[in-house]
């Protein structure tokens, strides 16, 4: 072990440890190695930052809580991730105990920048262990890091690890079990003038806010790098909550003095830290110069090449979609069969009545209609996990950023939007990789405009009615038009939101391009499982509740002895369909389509089965018989109902409308509020209505029917 003995305490009462580290440092791999499958994923209260925790079993049956902090490059409070990391480390987060030890995971191959965070954590005065991860890569590159010296210079124990091979984890566990004390004193120094002011502010904070010296110094640095004076009596940003007016006034005096002297405290600390790090590296790292380009550079020469880059990019995306739309259909059929088998079985064993109807048509059909997307979600998250862990995801964002930038979005918005073609749910969930909260929100808001696979059955039946004799090519081109319409709509709306509602200073796009690495299959599978579990949990709660409500609306009040179509017409949903007829008449729809629209809130493809009931064909009608029913449907005065124009208008409506309770539920979970999903629902409803109306109006005026 490479730590001085004085740093070890004989006995300790370590209960909680936190894992901190830069993105791509292998922090999650270490977390997985520590906690195996004993993990919990949730949200921090009030923010949308993911909270991951688990338990680590130390020797002698000791169990320690492990908190996996969000990966950050810094602890300066500029993003929710950084805020959470800082608050947890300082013990300011409710429900999360202050960690007794921080294990800072450091990418040994990128020591210089990774040590920056180490230096910031040290300032907080929390006992720390540095896990020098991915040491195998460093060895391969012929670099030698003197661990003993590094540990001495940093003043904390340093352990060399290869987390994905479980190397060094036992040593880490021993250290955690023994406990570590915070024997740190700051070594790096800024310019004397700034040091003086920082010292004074530290004193103020210790005195007035009752902080420890370390915490106060860290806070003082954050305060000194403010651009403007603080306002008294209110909350000026996140760092200042709960400060007295007197304290704020005295802090302002210091800020004024700095400004008068023309000192730039904001960057002084950054530069001082990096100077200190450089001096350490000079002592501890021996670089054997190697010749030639390394592995990553050779791969990148192809994958980010002007021509081959695009070919590879499109190829990978096409392959992903091929898998989602073809391979996934096999297990999807099984799930479908499984749920209908379950429905049949319940029908057979349960006595006829409302309860059976609820179980079969409400619960089994409702949840089944959503769970059927599980294979697509699994495959999608397998790809996302794989591409992320290899490092390709950053390259995809690098290639696509120019395009996304035009819409006011970030390169990283590309994957969530693309994923939404399969299903908006995983798309919205994968928007978590976008750091800027506003960019993330815009991405979430427009993601459901991408035509998901649940729209396919609706498009298919409408196209069949629209052009009964169409060739496959014609059908495909109409389908393509629908997809393109959705994409254009998403682009326009993204641009619109960024220009109005969610206007923000263009966020800086600084993104690390990590070296290519072979992913750990364990991690990819775990990631896939974790996402799917979240999805299933939602299907089991919110989506289940919504399915039951919709079922009730379509079932009650009961009219015994009535034909199925008549009963549906008299149900609450049917009455609502009749009620909205005046609203949807300008689009060319009658009350029957109205019922279909309302029923398809459960999931868009339910439109097809609802329409089968409306036309009294039974739920499992053949597509052909439904097509014929549509073709012969007419208004009371004998005009045909499903004219080509109505079919087109209906398709356009489905392109834009958020006819999906599951998406609403997921957006609620991801944004932690009802405000955004409701806003999203209404803006999309308006968009859908206007677009469908325009199609119908313009078409009618132009003489089409």
């Amino acid at each position: 072990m490479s730590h001085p003995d004085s740093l070890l305490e004989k006995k300790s009462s370590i209960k909680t440890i936190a894992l901190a580290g830069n993105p791509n440092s292998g922090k999650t791999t270490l977390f997985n190695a520590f906690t195996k499958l004993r993990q919990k994923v949730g949200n921090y209260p009030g923010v949308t930052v993911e909270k991951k925790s688990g338990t680590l079993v130390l020797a002698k049956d000791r169990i320690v809580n492990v908190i996996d902090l969000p990966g950050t490059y810094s602890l300066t409070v500029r993003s929710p991730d950084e805020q959470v990391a800082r608050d947890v480390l300082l013990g300011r987060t409710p429900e999360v105990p202050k960690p007794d030890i921080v294990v800072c995971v450091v990418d040994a191959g990128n020591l210089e920048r990774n040590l920056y965070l180490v230096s910031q954590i040290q300032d907080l005065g929390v006992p720390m262990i540095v896990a020098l991860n991915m040491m195998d890569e460093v060895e391969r590159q012929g670099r030698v890091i003197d661990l003993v010296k590094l540990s001495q210079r940093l003043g904390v124990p340093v352990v060399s690890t290869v987390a994905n091979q479980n190397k060094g984890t036992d040593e880490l566990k021993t250290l955690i079990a023994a406990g570590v004390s915070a024997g740190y004193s700051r070594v790096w120094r800024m310019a004397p003038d700034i040091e003086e002011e920082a010292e004074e502010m530290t004193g103020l904070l210790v005195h007035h806010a009752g902080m420890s010296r370390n915490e106060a110094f860290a806070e003082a640095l954050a305060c000194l790098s403010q651009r403007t004076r603080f306002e008294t009596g209110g909350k000026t940003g996140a760092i200042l909550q709960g400060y007295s007016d007197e304290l704020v006034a005295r802090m302002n005096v210091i800020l004024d003095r700095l400004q008068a002297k023309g000192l730039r405290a904001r960057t002084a600390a950054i530069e001082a830290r990096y100077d200190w790090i450089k001096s350490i590296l000079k002592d501890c790292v021996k670089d054997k110069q190697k010749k030639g380009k390394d592995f990553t550079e050779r791969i990148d020469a192809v994958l980010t090449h002007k021509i081959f880059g695009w070919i590879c990019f499109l190829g990978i995306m096409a392959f992903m979609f091929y898998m989602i739309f073809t391979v996934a259909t096999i297990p999807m059929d099984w799930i479908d069969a499984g749920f209908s088998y379950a429905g049949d079985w319940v029908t057979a064993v349960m006595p006829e009545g409302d309860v059976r109807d609820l179980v079969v048509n409400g619960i089994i059909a409702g949840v089944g209609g959503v769970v059927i997307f599980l294979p697509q979600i699994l495959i999608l998250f397998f790809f996302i996990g794989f591409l992320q862990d290899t490092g390709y995801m950053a390259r995809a964002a690098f290639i696509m950023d120019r395009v996304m930038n035009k819409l006011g979005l970030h390169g990283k918005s590309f994957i969530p939007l693309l994923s939404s073609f399969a299903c908006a749910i995983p798309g919205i969930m994968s928007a978590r990789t976008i750091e800027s909260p506003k960019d993330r929100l815009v991405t979430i808001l427009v993601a459901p405009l991408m035509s998901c696979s649940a729209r396919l059955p609706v498009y298919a039946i409408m196209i069949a009615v629209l052009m009964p004799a169409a060739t496959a090519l014609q059908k495909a081109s109409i389908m393509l038009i629908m997809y393109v319409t959705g994409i254009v709509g998403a682009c326009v709306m993204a641009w619109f939101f960024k220009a109005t509602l969610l206007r923000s200073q263009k966020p800086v796009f600084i993104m690390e391009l990590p070296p290519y690495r072979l992913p750990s299959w364990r991690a990819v599978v775990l990631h896939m499982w974790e996402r799917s579990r979240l999805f299933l949990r939602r299907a089991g709660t919110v989506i289940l509740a919504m399915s039951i409500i919709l079922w009730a609306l379509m079932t009650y009040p009961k009219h015994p002895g009535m034909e199925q179509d008549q009963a549906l017409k008299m149900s609450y949903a049917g009455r609502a369909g009749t009620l909205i007829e005046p609203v949807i008449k300008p689009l060319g729809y009658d009350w029957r389509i109205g019922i279909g629209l309302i029923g398809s809130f459960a999931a868009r493809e339910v439109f097809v089965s609802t329409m089968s009931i409306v036309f009294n064909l039974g739920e499992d009608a053949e597509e052909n018989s439904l097509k014929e029913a549509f073709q012969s449907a007419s208004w009371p005065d004998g005009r045909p109902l499903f004219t080509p124009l109505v079919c087109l208008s209906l398709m356009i409506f489905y392109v834009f409308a958020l006819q999906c309770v599951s998406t609403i539920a997921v957006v609620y979970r991801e944004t932690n509020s009802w405000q955004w999903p409701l806003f999203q629902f209404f803006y999309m409803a308006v968009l859908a209505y206007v677009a469908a109306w325009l199609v119908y109006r313009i078409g009618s005026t132009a003489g089409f029917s």
Partner: protein
Amino acid sequence: MDINKENKVLLSQIPVGGKCVILGFSAENDDCDRIEEMGLTPGEHVEIIRYAPLGDPVEIKIRGYCLSLRRQEADRINVELVP
């Protein structure tokens, strides 16, 4: 670092493969911290690795790792070319 050096150019003007030293930022704002925290501090050596296929963003090498920046950011960073 003297920001008023005569051979001062913008990071965005350095050709692919070119190496330079950071002098400072042409305009101070909140984003500068973020950029500096990633290691782009005055006095540091930077190498331009490549531009993205559509010409933006740019990939640079700094402190031994690769980072991508938009031209918009690169436009704000003053550098001096290293022969």
